[in-house]
């Protein structure tokens, strides 16, 4: 670590000398990135999805940018600390990171303390994966479908902190469909809820498809409802929230809220740079990201580890993020109430 530090220091010194008056030479982004170090911030602890995706992708970002990628874990405030760090870091194109799209948007909407960033102002390199939301129920409950779930009396749904995504999903969907449920929040992590589900302390929980996969494969729990409009693979044949909404008395009203909710998960796990990065460098980074995401070696490794990929380029990701923040007043109020735990 000391060596990296010294190297960085030396690079800084040389940079300062070279950047002395008159020495500014036009250089292509490829020349700029050659041999530099890109700091890649992960707003969560090592271990876990965001960290895994980042470490999996980093070698390929190195391959296509020519720079070294240093992963820095910066956990805190439910991912907000890292997101703020990315937002406020120097806009030299050497500082990027992965963020939790939907949680950062909802926190910003609700004006949560510490949400000192603007999701719409990030320079997105693109999206690694959408955060398809699924509701799973434990094997021991004997519930195997959404229908059975609705007929089974009061169900206990586990959630992490108030305003966390497992909580918001449960109360929003529960509110829209009038589910007979008791949301118990306060679990440390989604792993914690899974343990409680295995014990039979809670019946079900919401979470991302990616994290639920391990337990689905192992037969510990099964999906009964999800946010994917065009289900395939493990979700095939399982009703989506839209299918359920279609059969209700107020299909349009429900669909509107659910679309807004799904819009949040569509932001997924984007890679972002701070505002103000020079255009040529941003374009170069976006291109490198697109190439890295399409690298057959990378996709093979991701598939091997059961990690889903759903690439979107920078512009598309920005559009998805903008759409997700653009809510009508009623829906916005509903989300804010959910995040603040008032629903």
């Amino acid at each position, binding site marked *: 670590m000391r060596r990296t530090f010294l190297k960085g220091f030396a690079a800084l010194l040389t940079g300062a000398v070279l950047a002395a008056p008159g020495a500014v030479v036009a250089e292509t982004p490829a020349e700029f990135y050659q041999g530099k170090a890109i700091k890649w911030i992960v707003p969560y602890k090592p271990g876990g999805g965001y960290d895994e995706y980042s470490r999996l992708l980093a070698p390929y970002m190195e391959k296509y940018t020519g720079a070294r990628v240093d992963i820095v874990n910066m956990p805190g*405030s439910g991912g907000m600390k890292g997101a703020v760090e990315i937002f406020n870091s120097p806009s030299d194109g050497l500082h990027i990171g992965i963020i939790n799209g939907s949680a950062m948007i909802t926190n910003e909407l609700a004006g949560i303390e510490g949400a000192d960033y603007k999701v719409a102002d990030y320079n997105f390199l693109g999206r690694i994966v959408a955060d398809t939301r699924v509701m799973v129920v434990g094997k021991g409950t004997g519930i195997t479908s959404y229908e059975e779930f609705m007929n089974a009396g009061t169900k206990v749904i586990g959630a992490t902190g108030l305003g966390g995504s497992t909580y918001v999903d449960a109360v929003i969907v529960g509110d829209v469909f009038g589910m007979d449920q008791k949301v118990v929040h306060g679990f440390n992590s989604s792993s914690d809820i899974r343990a409680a589900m*295995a014990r039979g302390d809670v019946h079900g929980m919401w979470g991302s498809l990616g994290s639920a996969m*391990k337990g689905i494969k192992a037969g510990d729990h099964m999906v009964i409802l999800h946010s994917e409009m065009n289900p395939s693979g493990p979700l095939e044949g399982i009703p989506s929230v839209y299918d359920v909404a279609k059969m209700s008395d107020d299909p349009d009203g429900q669909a509107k809220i659910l679309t807004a909710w799904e819009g949040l998960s569509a932001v997924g796990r984007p890679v972002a740079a701070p505002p103000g990065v020079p255009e040529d460098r941003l374009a170069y980074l976006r291109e490198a990201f697109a190439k890295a995401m399409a690298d057959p070696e990378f996709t093979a490794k991701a598939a091997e580890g059961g990690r889903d990929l759903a690439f979107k380029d920078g512009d598309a990701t920005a559009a998805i993020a903008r759409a997700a923040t653009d809510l009508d007043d009623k829906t916005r109020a509903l989300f804010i109430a959910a995040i603040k735990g008032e629903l």
Partner: protein
Amino acid sequence: MTIIEGMMSGFVQSISLGVLAYLVIGALFGLVIGVIPGLSGHFAMAMAVTFLYSMEPGAGIAFILGAHATVAQGGGLTAILFSTPGTGQNAATLLDGPPMRDNGQAGLAVGAAMASCFLGATFGAIVLGLLIPVLREVVLFFGPPEVFVLAFLALTFVAVLGKEDMTRSLIAALLGLLLAMIGVDNVTNTHRFTMGSDRLADGLSLVPVILGLFAVAEMIDLWTRGGALARHTSRPLSARDTQKQIFQGIGLAFRKWWLVLRCSAIGTTMGLIPGLGSAPAAFVAYGHAKQTAKDKESFGKGNVEGVIAPEASNDAVEGGALASTIAFGIPGSSSMAILLSGLFILGLETGPQMLNDNVDIIFIMIFTIILGNLIGTVVGMFLVNPLSRATSIRAEIMVPVLMAIIVTGAYAGDRSLFDIGVALVFGVLGYLMKILNYSRAAMLIGFVLGFAVEKNLYLALLLDGPWFIVAEPIPRALTIITVAFLGWNVLAIRRDRRRTKYHG
């Protein structure tokens, strides 16, 4: 794959050249990380994970788990010699380790600590192996009500921890509970004691608090006192004496096998419980050793049992902690979350698949823990001599050097400058507590367990209602034990008081 087949295959793989080499490298790496104050097993693993991409599964597991397994050993070494614990798991060793050093028994203490680590780790690993057929059921044993009562039981051990008086211990423990509340409350999203600071919103991290309370406080003490770390001895032990003591220490650990066994059982059981970690295990084991000893008075003044107990239990935790990770892919601690990532990188599935098809992998883990600790013990023995020589260096040289290492350790965990501040503030607090005779151990255990107690109480109340502590059989049994333990303590204290009154 049957369990016997898996065991054979796991053993053969563990001692094959392609795996053993990585195991040795991992174990040495962990030992070095452990020796540096503030750098934890979690840190060692996070660094080791980066190298996994090009490794075979067996070699990768041996490497990453080997690095994690020996950290407690390295930390015990510095706890005894320099009064600076590697991380939380070695904090309990501070109660009797440094006094032994001051009595000129550094070699004895380290020898006993190293051997206890090895024995504890072996115990935990064997239990893990024995539990494989019922691993899933065992893990599911502990829900919020059980964890709450167990954590509360552990908390009551503060009563016997320190050599300080009961009232001061209680004050310190309650202060620790208050410190645990700092941050945004997970349940209600309320900011508690954050004083508007974003940094405090996540609560205090364990490592800088421990470094401050013990290591920094010790440095302040040493600085104001002058002289050398090792107090009563005029000159350092000769290499030969140290070597002799080390072997005596190892012998002692084996001779006190019954204590080692009990403390290992405490460690492994607490390792099974998600979210408790190894620091409370070490303190509970210490409390247990003191409670059951005939000469309670000698604890805190350099009783070798006070070193054996925490060091046996903090390494026995490993076997228990692996259980829920293997059985369900549910990590019980941040280290286990990284291990899970590592398994994912190596292309291994946890859960039923591992229990049925990859039993050999579980046995590689088990043998890694045992062999890694054996390597740590042997190498650690060679480290004692040069390191113990440093304990007689004068304060003017020693304090700045150790402070630089401590500050770096406080920073390195989360790369946070704020944590350096936390370590310094707690250093002053720790020093004040030391000279005013308040138990730092009691405060630490309050701090470490406060979160687990509060969270599980809340969840247990929501899930099972207000009568959860007596409604279910397991919590009911645990509650009875807790009450009995407290009652017995109160009686013992009253008896002691009457006796002192009589003699006085």
